[in-house]
């Protein structure tokens, strides 16, 4: 089976990290899986990328990946952004594993800010890059205090934040990093995914792992776990909806990004999940602009505006 798979660059240990570090991270992962939503500190290592480029997620991926795994890397749903491409190349070089853009063919999917549209299955692992693991940090800057709040399940303050949203905007205006309760016990930051993706975390057959490089924290959601988005009885949690379908594939189910077409204010909405969109188009689905030259000129993510979120 040697010919099928390229060997990795043997200047490095398999998956870059040394075996002892990987074991240490795996122990943290097991603990995180045993206590869903709980932030486990770990002795993070330096990775050959700056913090803010997914070093936490990379350490998790490096610790769970095996030579026969297939890896997919996405950044806000796209496989072809600089961040996704450089992480994918890095793992190709230090593991020699196969990579894919097809969600259903991946064993491990490392992601920044999205959950794929195609439902995940048992045996898959979704690795999230985490810029700020502590959902209470903006409300309570003291680490000693947030630790107690988690320990004692004192989460009223999170509802104060949602209350403030409604008081100011008439509805819960938080659209990403929307806080969730995991397994009815721990308050958890879902990372800056859009709240559109929150329901996908619930009862997901895949393993969901979260790595925060700068803060050196790991947390996890085991398969088939209860994940609830916080809300009020009279202001229930709702996901984003769009009045239009994807301009390229016509999907009305997916998360859409706004793409600016020209200087005169022209714009269209397309799937943020590039693989999902391409697959639908290949299967014959099309949207309003699918046949236009504009659409051909634009790869689905080409004109995508860089979001203002903190990088993971």
């Amino acid at each position, binding site marked *: 089976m040697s010919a099928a798979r390229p060997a990795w660059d043997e200047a490095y240990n398999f998956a870059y990290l040394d075996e002892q570090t990987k074991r240490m991270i795996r122990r943290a992962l097991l603990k995180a899986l045993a206590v869903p939503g709980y932030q486990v500190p770990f002795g993070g290592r330096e990775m050959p990328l700056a913090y803010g480029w997914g070093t936490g997620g990379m350490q998790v991926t490096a610790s769970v990946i095996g030579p026969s795994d297939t890896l997919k890397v996405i950044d806000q749903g796209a496989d072809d952004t600089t961040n996704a491409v450089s992480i994918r190349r890095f793992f190709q070089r230090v593991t020699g594993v196969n990579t894919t853009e097809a969600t259903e063919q991946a064993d491990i999917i490392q992601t920044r800010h999205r959950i794929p549209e195609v439902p995940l299955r048992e045996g898959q692992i979704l690795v999230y890059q985490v810029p700020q693991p502590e959902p209470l940090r903006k409300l309570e800057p003291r680490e000693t205090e947030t630790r107690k709040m988690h320990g004692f399940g*004192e989460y009223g303050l999170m509802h*104060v934040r949602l209350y403030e949203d409604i008081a100011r905007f008439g509805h819960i205006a938080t659209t990403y990093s929307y806080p969730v309760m995991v397994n009815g016990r721990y308050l958890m930051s879902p990372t800056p995914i859009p709240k559109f993706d929150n329901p996908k975390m619930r009862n997901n057959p895949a393993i969901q792992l979260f790595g925060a490089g700068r803060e050196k924290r790991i947390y996890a959601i085991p398969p088939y776990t209860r994940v609830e988005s916080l809300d009020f*009885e009279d202001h229930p949690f709702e996901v984003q909806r769009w009045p239009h379908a994807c301009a390229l594939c016509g999907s009305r189910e997916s998360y859409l990004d706004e793409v600016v077409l020209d200087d005169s204010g022209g714009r269209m909405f397309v799937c943020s999940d590039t693989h999902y969109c391409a697959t639908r188009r290949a299967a014959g689905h099309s949207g309003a602009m699918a046949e236009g030259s504009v659409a051909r000129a634009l790869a689905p993510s080409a004109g995508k505006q860089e979001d203002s979120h903190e990088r993971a």
Partner: protein
Amino acid sequence: MSALEAVTAPRAAVRPLLRVCGLSKSYGETVGCVDVSFTLYPGEVIGIVGESGSGKSTLLNLLCAQLEPDAGTVEYDVGGEGLRDVFCLPEPQRRRLMRTDWGLVHQNPRDGLRMDVSAGGNVGERLMAVGARHYGAIRGEALDWLSRVELDGGRIDDRPKHFSGGMQQRLQIARNLVTRPRLVFMDEPTGGLDVSVQARLLDLLRGLVREMGIAAVVVTHDLAVVRLLADRLMVMRRGRVVEEGLTDQVLDDPHHPYTQLLVSSVLQV
């Protein structure tokens, strides 16, 4: 039988709310408070007076478990089920007490309010902490409390950093009383306010405390405050209680020379 015991004798049938025994705390060489004991009954307001540095805030912080004593005990009637040493309670339970059954009004509203959260959110925080999950109901309750402390309901979405000192103090009171605590600790509740604002705040506090039957421990160096609010009085000097009794008796007929000095100096003002 001491004068104080004689006074409290008719209450013998009522169970104490708070019992303090031999409470001492020092900061290295500096005396905080020494061997303080007293008992507080439901609905009773006790004043603690004394000059600056006499140990009033130290005592108050020990009582509400913000500080650990070197010696002595603080017992509280947790959940109406009898006295329990608050320092032996599991921490989550003590913290729960802090945001339900107790109130803590700080001298500086900045310490007792969330300055970047709206007035409504400040009042609603305790309700949400004990599980309120209906926005409309929380807001209704917040509006009700704003009016009870004479704040304009139209300011409900404004942040307290835009409020005057007196308004901030009233908001702090509303934020504490919304869970109908049985015991409120106040450190110089009218300190730093204009005299006319002080007087109105005192009237308001007295009305609420009486109406709700709240017990309170009020620390102040202002004898006018205790005259108006407190049923009983403790006079502190260098960390020790040098005189105690019914407020009017202590103020009108002080026995300890230090109390006499305090009273006479206030009369000169």
